[in-house]
């Protein structure tokens, strides 16, 4: 079942990649990339159980956080045209 779930996640990742390629707006791409991060967190967690090494979960945890940071950074760039100012300025 781990294998089946991993393959399902791989299929999900493939189609998210298609969405990244197709766009059409940049927001579609960001949405797909953000979801891609979720998918890869799930894949790594599943893979850790698949190979009976749940210590991989540390990496899944790190990814769950990193993914958020890059998404917020790019959205801030959109909003403020720069990364160095606060949103209110």
């Amino acid at each position, binding site marked *: *079942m781990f294998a089946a*779930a991993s393959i399902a996640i791989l299929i999900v990742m493939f189609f998210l990649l298609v969405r990244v390629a197709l766009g*059409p*707006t940049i927001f579609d791409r960001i949405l797909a990339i953000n979801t891609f991060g*979720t998918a890869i*967190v799930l894949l790594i*967690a*599943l893979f850790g159980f698949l190979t009976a090494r*749940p210590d991989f979960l540390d990496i899944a945890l790190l990814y769950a956080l990193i993914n958020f940071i890059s998404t917020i950074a790019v959205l801030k760039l959109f909003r403020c045209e720069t990364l160095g100012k606060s949103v209110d300025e």
Partner: protein
Amino acid sequence: MLVASWLLLGLGSVFCLIGTLGLMRLPDFYSRVHAASIIDSLGAILILLGLILQTQDLLVIAKLILILLFMMLTGPTAVHALAHTALLNEKSSSTDENHQLPE
């Protein structure tokens, strides 16, 4: 216990696939967000719950719960920031004729 775990993993995968189908089928960005949030919410929750049922190690369970918690806290924030920025961008591009629509 194990049967429940397999069931949760299978259901989670199915919801992830449905979400992806929605991401491909739905017509515009604002509705695609709904499809992506299926993967982020029930897909992720069910798969992680399924994994929690697989192990007796308390540390592993704690880490899985932490992953779930972080996802549930950061996911909606990221989606809201994305939708809000898209909305602002749409508004500014409708008033400003020179504004190029992002690709």
